[in-house]
């Protein structure tokens, strides 16, 4: 066998896997369930709102129009206006970036800190494992809202601080999941076989444990994304998040509450958006679970 043969056969093999991947994508698109397609569509729209809000509305989200207070939804103002004459649709579109970035920071924090703790706990000695997991148990024992409120009071108000507060509440969940996955993978024959062929602890962690245990962590991250949007909105609603006039979704709901008898759309519309995003994230995370299992 010459080197040329080897390279040639490798290229051939690569070419084949490439085409099969394209075929797989095409088949996936054809068999995509409608609810999943809708979920992706909702998330994509909200993402576009966050990236380029000016494409979706020409109104200013923070400055009201004189004489146009508390208008009902009509052709001019799709979702009506609030007490200061600001277009509600524009405020929701511009608010996407606050909610999404907050949720991303929260989930990112949860994933990084939680998974690191879980992987350490799952792969080290019994005693350190116990110490870490008991701390995680304590975290789980505190109601999430109470925990995030305490953290915000320590750190101060603001969008980023609210996101950190929400992220800390998901650390425990990620840590537990990551640990259980690592423990499962560590017991498998292929990990033992790797040790048996002389691999060091770090080599096994990098080559086998991490790639095989992180799939479900990623699936759960999508689920947490939805609940993070909800939690950040809750904090905004309670006044612990971004200060007014930021068009953060939770804050929008809180502001609209004062007019709920006369202008119901002010609370309902942002509420519906939050619910849709959360449901979409749930549905997508579910589909991840199916693919991996």
């Amino acid at each position, binding site marked *: *066998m010459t*080197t040329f043969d080897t390279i040639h056969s490798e290229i*051939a093999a690569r070419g084949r896997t490439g085409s099969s991947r394209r075929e797989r994508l095409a088949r996936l698109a054809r068999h995509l369930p409608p609810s999943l397609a809708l979920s992706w569509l909702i998330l994509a729209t909200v993402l576009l709102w966050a990236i380029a809000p000016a494409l979706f509305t020409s109104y200013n989200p923070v400055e009201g129009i004189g004489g146009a207070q508390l208008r009902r939804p009509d052709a001019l103002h799709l979702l009506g206006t609030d007490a200061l004459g600001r277009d509600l649709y524009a405020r929701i579109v511009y608010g996407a970036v606050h909610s999404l970035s907050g949720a991303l920071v929260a989930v990112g924090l949860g994933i990084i800190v939680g998974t690191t703790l879980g992987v350490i706990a799952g792969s080290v000695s019994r005693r350190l494992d116990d110490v870490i997991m008991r701390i995680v148990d304590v975290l789980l024992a505190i109601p999430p809202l109470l925990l995030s409120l305490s953290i915000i009071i320590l750190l101060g108000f603001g969008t980023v601080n609210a996101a950190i507060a929400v992220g800390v509440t998901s650390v425990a969940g990620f840590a537990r999941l990551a640990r259980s996955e690592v423990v499962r993978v560590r017991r498998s*024959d*292929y990990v033992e*076989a790797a040790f*048996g062929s*002389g691999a*060091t602890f770090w080599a096994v962690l990098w080559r086998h444990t991490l790639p*095989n245990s992180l799939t479900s962590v990623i699936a759960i991250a999508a689920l947490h994304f939805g609940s993070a949007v909800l939690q950040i909105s809750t904090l905004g609603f309670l006044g612990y998040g971004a200060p007014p006039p930021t068009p953060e979704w939770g804050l929008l709901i809180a502001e609209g509450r004062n007019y709920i008898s006369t202008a119901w759309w002010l609370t309902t519309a942002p509420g519906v958006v939050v619910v849709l995003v959360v449901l979409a994230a749930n549905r997508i995370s579910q589909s991840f679970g199916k693919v991996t299992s």
Partner: protein
Amino acid sequence: MTSSTDPGIPVLEVSDLAISYHHGDRYHPAVHGASFRVEPGEVVALVGESGSGKTTAAQAIIGLLATNGRVDRGAIKLNGTDISRWSDKQFKTIRGARISLVPQDPGSSLNPVKTIGAQVGEILRIHGEARGRDLERRVVALLECVGLSEPELRARQYPHELSGGMRQRVLIAIAIALKPELIIADEPTSALDVTVQKRILDLIDELRTEYGTAVLLVTHDLGVAAERADRLIVLQGGRVQEEGRVSEVLASPRSPYTRQLIADAPSLSRPAARRRAAVRVSALGPTSDDVVIVEQLVQEFPRPGRDEGPLRAVDNVSFRVPRGTTHAIVGESGSGKTTTVRTIVGFQKPTSGRIQIDGTDLSTLGGETLRQFRRKIQLVYQNPYASLDPRQTIFEIIEEPLLNFSPVPRSERRDKVMSILSRVGLQETAAARRPHTLSGGQRQRVAIARALILEPQVVVLDEAVSALDVTVQARILDLLYELQQDLGLTYLFVSHDLAVVRRIADTVSVLRGGRLVDEGPVARVFEQPASDYTRELIKAIPGRRHPAFA
């Protein structure tokens, strides 16, 4: 049930049956026009390897095809009535009552949260046969009938309290509860030890003579089929290759595939590879170069939460293996054979005793020295599905051991992997694939390649061929033999299958309950077994009773 005694009509008549599975966008045929029949009171064996369509055909007969399966054409006649197009509701009326199934895996076929009695009673209740006191009485009678001791106690126990053999008896009790005309036994003993297997097959035989039930025995083991069946149907790739009386098929097989199967079945063929070994062992004599030395090995495990002493899994086991030979460790589950080899490869410290591999005493090793020692001895696992990382490519799997020791240049690594890949009989294109695209036999070749790439002195094969079909098993054994000839390897071969051991090993140690009960060259142990236990094991090898091969 009236027509079952009519001599003219077979219990089961399958004609031109074709079944396909929906996968992706198309239907993939699994059975192509198979025809066979089962007469009343007859045992017919459906023999074939995985993928031959034997299980698919059996599932279609009892109406339990997977949801993506479909009967394309043909008829399945039960006592003259075509049931191939029946609905699930119609099948419910005959399942258990007129046809019943003994499933393959007794571990997962019973409901873990219900008592044995409730599960046996369920079938009587569903078909409205009995209730209340009468039900309890009949359940106990059934359990007694299948040879379970203390049937009243067993009825109150849960599946996890019973051994594998006992669970299989419970499943048989469920299958015979309503005295069906046909029992489909789908690999009923492949998950069991040989001695247990023999008792279960004896039980099925007895029940058949007692009730006159016909049995369709689905198996990959020609030895079992030869010993227990009246007629054989050999399936390959969804087609019937051969059909006939067992003695005729075995004595003069017409299809080349059947001939192949007979040649590959370890229990039916004569031990051929053994000749060279006997010569070599005697030539080397007692002063020979022993690469594995195990002396008075004891391995204990603490039993937390109990007052008893520690569990002694291996009790005073000693043996020596000369370089370049194969030593087999034989025993049933729980005999301590796997514990022994795990200690030998250094996965756990022995409680006491001495192990020396190629001049290195294991007790002196630890940390880095232990890691370096792993070059000398490699383990191949039983289950090729679990021992390969599903996310790595075959190339990465085989290359990995090289990365663990002194750096080898990339091009040299590639050459080494490719040459070992072709050495174990795999195509070079396999290197870019992932384990799930390979068959069980191919995966086991990959596992062997991974074990060989470090050029070890000793390869430990822990039930390495037990999970494979006979033909694949024969190919892997051939490969192991070739590699031993070319590379001078020493094998430590752990197995519960005496027929395979007889085929490959030079010397053998028989373990029972952690103790050594018999040892010596294979020929002597087989011809003059020193213990009753060894004799029992040898007697339990299926196929030995058959006149053509006794």
